[in-house]
C-alpha cells in the first residue's frame, strides 16, 4: 500500500498543528461558532446529538494492521471503545471530546492517517472497489489512480469552498462495486482500441435528496490527463454551481439545469486551457504503482486439499465460505469478508478489541492489510485457501463471521436518530428488528442476494434510493414513519428505487419487509434474485401485499 514520504508526513503533521491552533482559538472565543463550524468540518468533526463525531479518512478503504491498532487505541482512549465504518470507507468515532480532537489527530498522524476533508463543502475521500488489486474482472488496479487523485484533492487551495461536498469514485472492473454512477465524478478505467489505458468520466451522479445517475462526459480520457480533467470539472462547478440553496448546490443539479451538452462544452473548453500544463507523467504513474505491487503470493497455494476436506466436514464453514469469501485472481487465494453485521450489533460498528484482533489476523494471514467496504464491512483480501478454515474459526470467536455478506441482513444503515443531529427517524433499532425477523440462516440464504439500505433522513447517508429495498425514515408531526422503495441498484445497471406507497409506521416496517420477501419467494422464477423479480413483475404485487 501507499507509504508516506517525508513530504506527505510533514503535510499531515502541519495540518494537526494548524487544527490544534484553530481549536485553541475557538475555545478562547477568538473564532466564532459559524467560522469554527466550517473549519472543524474540513477536519471531519461534526457536532452531533450527544457529542461531536469525528470522521477519519480511510483512503480508498485501504488500511494497514498498524493503522487498525491505532484506530483501536483511539476508540479506547477517546471514545466508548468502538468505531463505525461508513459507506465512504471512512471510520467514525461517535463520542470524542472536541478539545481532545487535536490529540487524536496527532495520534493518527503517527500512522499516516488523518481526517482531512472528510466533511465540508470540499473534495472528499476518493473511494474504490474493496476488491481492488485482487478482483478477477479487473482491467487495472484502481488504487494508484486513487492515490494520485487523493494527493490532488488534499488541501487543494482552489476547491475548499465549493457550493457543496464533492465525491469521486474510481472503478477498475467490469462490475462496478464502487457505485461510480452515483458520485459527483465517476472514473472508470477502460482501454481504447489500441489497448491503451484511459478513463471514461461520468459526472453529476449522486444520492441524497435528489438521487441522480451520472452521465458520461468523456467516453475516453488519456491517462496523462486525469488530473487536468478533474480540475476542469471542479472549476466549472465552483464557478457555476448554485449557491443560493444548499439542496440544489450539488453538481448533479448544475448538470440537470444546464444539460449534459452544455456542461460538456464548458468542461472541455476549460480543459483545453489547462491540459498541457497538468499532465501526469509516466514516471509518476510508475512511481505510485510501485506502492501497489502484488504481495509475495505462495505459488503452490492452490495445491492445498484441506479446504475441500474442511468444507465437507463443517457445514458452518462451508456456508461461511460460500457467502463471506470471494474469488481471487491468484490461484489458491480468496478474499474474505469480515462481517460487521452480526445480529446483535449495529451495522458497521466495530469494537476496539475486534479492531486489534483483525489487525493480528491481517498480519498473520493477509500481508498486514485490511480494506473497508462501501457496504460497511471489512475485507482480508489475500487469504491462502489452506488458511481459510483457521481464519473462519478465529473470526467466529470474535462474532465477525456471520455468513450474511450480500444477503438481507448485510444492511447499510446510517447512525440515525440515535446519534445524528440531522436524522428524522431511528435506523439502528429497525435494523435490529429486521435482523431478528430474518435470524433463520436457511431462510436468509434462501432469499439470497438482497441489498437493504436504510437511512434515517432525506440526506440518504445509507443510500436507500439504490437499495434493492430502500427504507427512508421521515418525521410526520414528531412521529417516525418509513418510506419503502423497491428496485434500486448502485451497480452496473444503476437504478433508483421506486416508491412503494405511503410511509408505514415504525412498528410495521419489519412486517412490510417480510411481506415483500414473501411476495418474492412466491413469484421468483428459478434462480432469479430479488432485484430481477422486482424488475420483471413490477411493484404492484408488492403493493398489494402491504397496503
Amino acid at each position, binding site marked *: 500500500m501507499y507509504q508516506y514520504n517525508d*513530504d506527505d508526513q*510533514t*503535510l499531515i503533521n*502541519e*495540518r494537526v*498543528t*494548524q487544527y490544534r491552533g*484553530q481549536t485553541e*482559538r475557538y475555545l478562547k472565543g477568538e*473564532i466564532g461558532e459559524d*467560522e469554527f463550524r*466550517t*473549519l472543524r468540518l474540513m477536519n471531519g468533526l461534526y457536532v452531533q446529538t450527544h457529542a461531536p463525531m469525528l470522521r477519519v479518512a480511510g483512503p480508498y478503504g485501504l488500511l494497514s494492521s498498524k493503522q487498525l491498532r491505532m484506530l483501536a487505541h483511539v476508540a479506547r482512549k477517546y471514545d466508548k471503545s468502538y468505531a463505525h465504518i461508513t459507506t465512504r470507507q471512512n471510520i467514525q468515532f461517535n463520542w470524542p471530546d472536541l478539545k481532545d480532537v487535536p490529540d487524536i489527530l496527532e495520534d493518527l498522524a503517527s500512522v499516516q492517517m488523518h481526517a482531512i476533508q472528510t466533511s465540508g*463543502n470540499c473534495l472528499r475521500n476518493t473511494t474504490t472497489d474493496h476488491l481492488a488489486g485482487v478482483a478477477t474482472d479487473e482491467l487495472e488496479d484502481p488504487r494508484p489512480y486513487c492515490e494520485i487523485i487523493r*494527493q*490532488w484533492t*488534499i*488541501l*487543494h*487551495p*482552489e*476547491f*475548499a*469552498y*465549493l457550493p457543496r461536498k464533492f465525491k469521486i469514485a474510481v472503478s477498475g472492473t467490469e462490475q462496478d462495486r464502487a457505485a461510480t454512477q452515483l458520485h459527483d465524478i465517476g472514473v472508470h478505467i477502460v482501454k481504447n482500441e489500441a489497448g491503451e489505458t484511459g478513463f471514461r468520466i461520468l459526472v453529476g451522479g449522486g444520492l441524497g435528496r435528489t438521487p441522480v445517475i451520472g452521465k458520461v462526459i468523456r467516453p475516453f480520457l488519456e491517462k496523462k490527463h486525469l488530473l487536468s480533467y478533474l480540475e476542469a470539472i471542479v*472549476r466549472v462547478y*465552483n*464557478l457555476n454551481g448554485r*449557491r443560493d440553496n444548499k439542496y440544489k448546490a450539488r453538481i448533479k443539479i448544475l448538470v440537470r439545469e444546464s444539460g449534459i451538452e452544455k456542461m460538456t462544452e464548458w468542461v472541455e473548453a476549460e480543459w483545453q*486551457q489547462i491540459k498541457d*500544463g*497538468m499532465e501526469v507523467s509516466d514516471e509518476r504513474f510508475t512511481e505510485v504503482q510501485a506502492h501497489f505491487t502484488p504481495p509475495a503470493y505462495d505459488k503452490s497455494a492452490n495445491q492445498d486439499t484441506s479446504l475441500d476436506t474442511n468444507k465437507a466436514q463443517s457445514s458452518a464453514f462451508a456456508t461461511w465460505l460460500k457467502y463471506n469469501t470471494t474469488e481471487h485472481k491468484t490461484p489458491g487465494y480468496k478474499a474474505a469478508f469480515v462481517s460487521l453485521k452480526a445480529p446483535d450489533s449495529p451495522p458497521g460498528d466495530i469494537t476496539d478489541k475486534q479492531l486489534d484482533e483483525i489487525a493480528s489476523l491481517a498480519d498473520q494471514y493477509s500481508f498486514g492489510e485490511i480494506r473497508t467496504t462501501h457496504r460497511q464491512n471489512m475485507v482480508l483480501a489475500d487469504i491462502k485457501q489452506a488458511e481459510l478454515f483457521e481464519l473462519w474459526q478465529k473470526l467466529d470467536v470474535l462474532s465477525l463471521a456471520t455468513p450474511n455478506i450480500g444477503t438481507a441482513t448485510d444492511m447499510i444503515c446510517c447512525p440515525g436518530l440515535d446519534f445524528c443531529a440531522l436524522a428524522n427517524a431511528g435506523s439502528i433499532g429497525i435494523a435490529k428488528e429486521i435482523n431478528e425477523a430474518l435470524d433463520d440462516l436457511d431462510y436468509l440464504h434462501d432469499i439470497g442476494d438482497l441489498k437493504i439500505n436504510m437511512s434515517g433522513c432525506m440526506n440518504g447517508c445509507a443510500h436507500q434510493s439504490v437499495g434493492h429495498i430502500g427504507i427512508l425514515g421521515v418525521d410526520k408531526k414528531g412521529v417516525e414513519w418509513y418510506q419503502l422503495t423497491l428496485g434500486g441498484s448502485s451497480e452496473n445497471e444503476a437504478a433508483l428505487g421506486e416508491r412503494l406507497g405511503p410511509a408505514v409506521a415504525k412498528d410495521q416496517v419489519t412486517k412490510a419487509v417480510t411481506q415483500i420477501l414473501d411476495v418474492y419467494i412466491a413469484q421468483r422464477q428459478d434462480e432469479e434474485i430479488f432485484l430481477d423479480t422486482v424488475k420483471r413483475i413490477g411493484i404492484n404485487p408488492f403493493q398489494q401485499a402491504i397496503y
Partner: protein
Amino acid sequence: MKIIKDKQIIEDSWRHIADDEEMTNGDITVSLARWNKEKDVLANHQGNIGIRIAPAEDVAEISDDLKNISLVAVELPAFTDGRAFTHARLLRSRYGYQGEIRAIGNYMADQAFYLHRVGVNAFELENEAELSTALSTLNDFTVKYQSSTN
C-alpha cells in the same frame, strides 16, 4: 486602515468607491459594472485604478484591461463562497496578471493560506485585529501537492 500586502502589515492607501459615489483622486477601486461603463473617463483618473470582481462575474471580461490597472479585488461576500479562489487563480495563471490581487469582504483569517496559494497577495480583513493571525497562517504549510500559483 491596515492590510497585509506581500507578507507585510502596511497602511493602505486605496479607497473602494461605491457605484453611486463620486470619484475622488488617489488610488481607487470600482466595480466591474462601473469600470465597463466609465472606462474612458477613468483613463484620465488622477491615481491608480483597481477593479472589484464579484463572485458571479467573469474575470475573462477584464483580461484585456489588466495591463492598465494595478489592483484587482476579489470579493468574498461570505466566507463560504469559494469563487474568489478561482478568480485569483485565473488572473495569475491564465491572464498573467502581475499586479496586486486583494481579497476583500467577509472571510476568515484562516482562509489566507489558501488564498495566498491561488495568487492573492493582499488581504483586507473586516476585523483588522485578525491581520496578525492571517499573516501567521501564511506559514501553516511548508509542503503541498498541487501546482498552483504559490
